[in-house]
């Protein structure tokens, strides 16, 4: 691989710009395929460039057959994001597990003293109100949102904004009773039952988790399950 190609690839990734690396497995010649153009020394027919673009969009590594030999398409999309509302004690192991699993983690809490403590050095921290932060971060279909504050003033606006996004996972910490009350409040905000069913509450897989780290594991396990196996798993 040419250094300049690797530098361009790293720059695109740094900028959050999706890019696929196409490699001829015989010659080693390579091409960077962006949504809107290409660069590199591998010649690819336009239909193959289109196929590479589709692999990028689907975020799936693919091998294409071309007259010049097989070409491996390696997609590099910006990482999925995990947005955690509430810099409470569970947020620390959850942020760490999210980072380990490859998510770009943002912890949102307007209560400065909470997020100022140790444990959040490795992740992005926002002091905005949750609805402002989520409006700015615009969760997409590959992003997850988890609320942990227990405080309706913070959790409800966050869930309100998250429900209007295509986030693949929405979870809210709280007991069954807390969650039932939460659903009633959100209903008053105009959400229908099937929309509210998107919220995983009580959050996390039922594994008897007790400590903050165990609860974070149960949440991350459910996020992973939903991402890899879908909502009905």
């Amino acid at each position: 691989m040419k250094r300049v190609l690797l530098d361009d690839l790293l720059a695109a990734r740094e900028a959050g710009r999706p890019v696929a690396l196409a490699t001829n497995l015989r010659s080693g010649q390579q091409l960077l395929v962006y949504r809107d153009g290409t660069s590199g020394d591998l010649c690819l027919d336009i239909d193959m460039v289109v196929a590479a673009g589709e692999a990028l969009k689907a975020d799936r590594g693919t091998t294409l057959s071309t007259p010049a030999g097989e070409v491996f398409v390696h997609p590099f999309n910006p990482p999925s994001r995990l947005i955690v509302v509430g810099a409470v004690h569970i947020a620390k192991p959850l942020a760490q597990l999210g980072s380990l699993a490859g998510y770009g983690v943002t912890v949102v809490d307007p209560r400065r003293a909470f997020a100022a403590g140790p444990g959040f050095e490795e992740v992005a921290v926002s002091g905005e109100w949750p609805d402002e932060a989520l409006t700015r971060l615009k969760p997409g279909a590959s992003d997850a949102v988890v609320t942990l504050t227990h405080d309706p003033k913070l959790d409800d606006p966050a869930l309100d904004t998250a429900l209007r996004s295509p986030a693949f996972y929405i979870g809210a910490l709280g007991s069954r009773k807390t969650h039932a009350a939460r659903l009633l409040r959100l209903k008053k905000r105009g959400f229908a039952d099937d929309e509210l069913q998107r919220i995983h509450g009580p959050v996390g897989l039922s594994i008897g988790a007790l400590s903050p780290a165990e609860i974070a594991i149960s949440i991350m396990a459910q996020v992973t399950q939903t991402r890899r196996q879908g909502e009905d798993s």
Partner: protein
Amino acid sequence: MSEDILREAAKWRKDGRGVALATVVSTWGSSPRPVGSQLAVDDKGVFIGSVSGGCIEGAVIKEALDAIAGGRPRLLDFGVTNEQAWDVGLACGGKVQVFVERLE
């Protein structure tokens, strides 16, 4: 944070070390690491990342050192049917194809 193999490889190269990249380009059956998994190797055999659960790393690193020395990219096949199965076969019974290239 998860390992950033490409960034590390670029840094190694900038420091003047010889570097090769290995990438899983296809898998069949049960294979421990998905397509796109990468491993970076320097000219001393120091490596980060993985292309299997540890079963084929040794063989891939040997090929990577060859690629650093000679420059030719290569496509490696591993699996239970491989002649080297006894020492570098995949315990899980899957097959995996790994592309190895030098970082110029």
